[in-house]
């Protein structure tokens, strides 16, 4: 009968360094499967962030660049503008994209740069040991919010997908999750749609993936999924937030 489930060609054989219960592995795999299915491995360039996924390039088998913290959307702009035939994506965490890199992602989205961003939202800074992120929930304890995030002091967590969808330039903006199989199936479809928009040369595409970080949340992997479902998914709602058709239709309707 042969193998029915195997490692995607776009994913390398290397064992990853991610923690048990981390969903980076799932996200990486979904991206790799989509790249295989679309047959674009030979012309894809990924851009790795600074964060737990700083070594993401070790887990993929195509061209990769490594960005400075937050700067991946600017690097993606550089690549896609000079080589529009390449398929370009950034893969970024909360600190990278929603903190230091907020300027870069907003402007790339606003210019309608034709690359894809995969945004891993796990409400905490992973690599550096669990500090507060712009996406940390109210009351959530982290190493730099030991008494719980105080929204009167540092504001509410940022909903990046909604923030970006407020821009007038058409884009594909979606929020999905990789914490359980029922969400993973939809996440893969969204990632594929995002890359398909890029192949059409249509618009900027953005997939936010609500993820777990058991290590820095102080949970077991099973507890982490439960907390993510209860607390994160009730705030970071899943679904297609914006499509280019909507945006284009909307301006006609005026």
């Amino acid at each position: 009968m042969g193998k029915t489930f195997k490692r995607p060609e776009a994913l390398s054989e290397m064992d990853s360094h991610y923690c048990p219960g981390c969903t980076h592995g799932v996200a990486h795999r979904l991206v790799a499967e989509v790249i295989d299915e679309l047959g674009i491995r030979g012309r894809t360039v990924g851009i790795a962030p600074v964060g737990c996924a700083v070594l993401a390039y070790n887990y993929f088998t195509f061209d990769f660049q490594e960005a400075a913290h937050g700067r991946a959307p600017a690097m993606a702009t550089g690549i896609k503008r000079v080589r529009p035939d390449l398929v370009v994506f950034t893969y970024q965490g909360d600190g990278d994209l929603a903190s230091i890199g907020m300027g870069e992602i907003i402007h790339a989205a606003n210019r309608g740069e034709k690359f894809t961003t995969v945004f891993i939202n796990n409400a905490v800074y992973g690599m550096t040991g669990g500090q507060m992120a712009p996406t940390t929930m109210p009351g959530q304890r982290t190493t730099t919010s030991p008494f719980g995030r105080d929204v009167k002091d540092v504001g509410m967590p940022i909903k990046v997908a909604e923030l970006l969808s407020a821009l007038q330039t058409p884009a594909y903006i979606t929020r999905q999750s990789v914490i359980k199989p029922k969400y993973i199936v939809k996440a893969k479809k969204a990632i594929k749609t995002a890359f398909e928009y890029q192949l059409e040369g249509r618009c900027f595409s953005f997939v936010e993936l609500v993820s777990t970080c058991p290590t820095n949340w102080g949970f077991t992997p099973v507890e982490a999924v439960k907390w993510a479902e209860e607390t994160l998914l009730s705030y970071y709602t899943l679904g297609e937030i914006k499509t280019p058709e909507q945006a284009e239709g909307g301006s006609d309707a005026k």
Partner: protein
Amino acid sequence: MGKILMKGNEAIGEAAIRAGCLNYFAYPITPQSEVAEYLSHRMPEVGGLFLQGESEVAVGYMIFGAAGCGERVFTTSSSPGVSLMSEAISYIAAAQCPAVFVNIMRGGPGLGGILPSQADYFQATKGGGHGDYRMLVMAPASVQEAAEMVMMAFPLAEKYRNPVMILGDGLIGQMMEPVEFPEHLKSEPTNKDEWATNGMDTRKSSRRNLVKSLFLDPVKLNENNLILKEKYERMKREEIRYEAYNIDSDYNILIVSYGTMSRVCKTAIDNLKEEGIEVGMIRPQTLFPFPENAVYEAASKKNCAMALSIEMSMGQMVEDVERCVHGKCPVKWYGKCGGEVPTPEEIMDVVRSNLS
């Protein structure tokens, strides 16, 4: 084609195109915004790319991305903007990508002023960004020289897989002078397939390329640094450029000066000659690598009693002059900052007072 009267900033933009660079990302900042304004209509004319980024930080990384996938690319900025690009420059050097940066210096530090200065010498030649890296730095003294140095910068950046900087000042950027773009300086990009992320299909290869600067293993990081260091040693052997002025005369004072400051000094030297006072000058055209031997030899001449570093700064190049002169004679600095340009008469006074 013949000479055209052009503003320095525009000549710099045109020079990149004539050198075969068709990609420009930039952010406006005085006194070099005219480069972007010129290229915003000129690049489309030649089928090139112009993009105004949202900040110099972003532009630095657009340059990195584009350079990393093997395309010729450049940007221009001025002092505070170059500070913002300095992190990206460190990354680009570490990842060994070719890229060209032009700094049209203005007064600093901080927001400073918009008039010319030479106060980014340290930033350009000693690092600017973090870590052990250097840029090949060229300093034009005229619009023509700026155009030629921009054209030379691209093949040099590719030869060394390193950022190259043209260090001009507000005068170079703003003044209009006749310029022509020598055909012989146009060059073809070198093959990047060995390292660039230009797509496996493009390279017809099953091996992927990785552009990165992270080496968590200390042995590997040290190796990367040794690779970079060897490049800089090679630059010192092969890329030193300078001009010697009135160096065959029997001078008592040696001036070391670069860029537009050196033109003021030349006038002063010519005027002093008529008074019977001989002054020699070494004008570095590369600030890194610095013409160390040339300065040392010139300062060692029999009657040379002093080396004078004249800069539009509070004294930055003077430290390199001191180092190269190696105690052969006293080394002093004269300069002004803030956008004030010393006049030939001031330089002449400085020379006369140092002779007495």
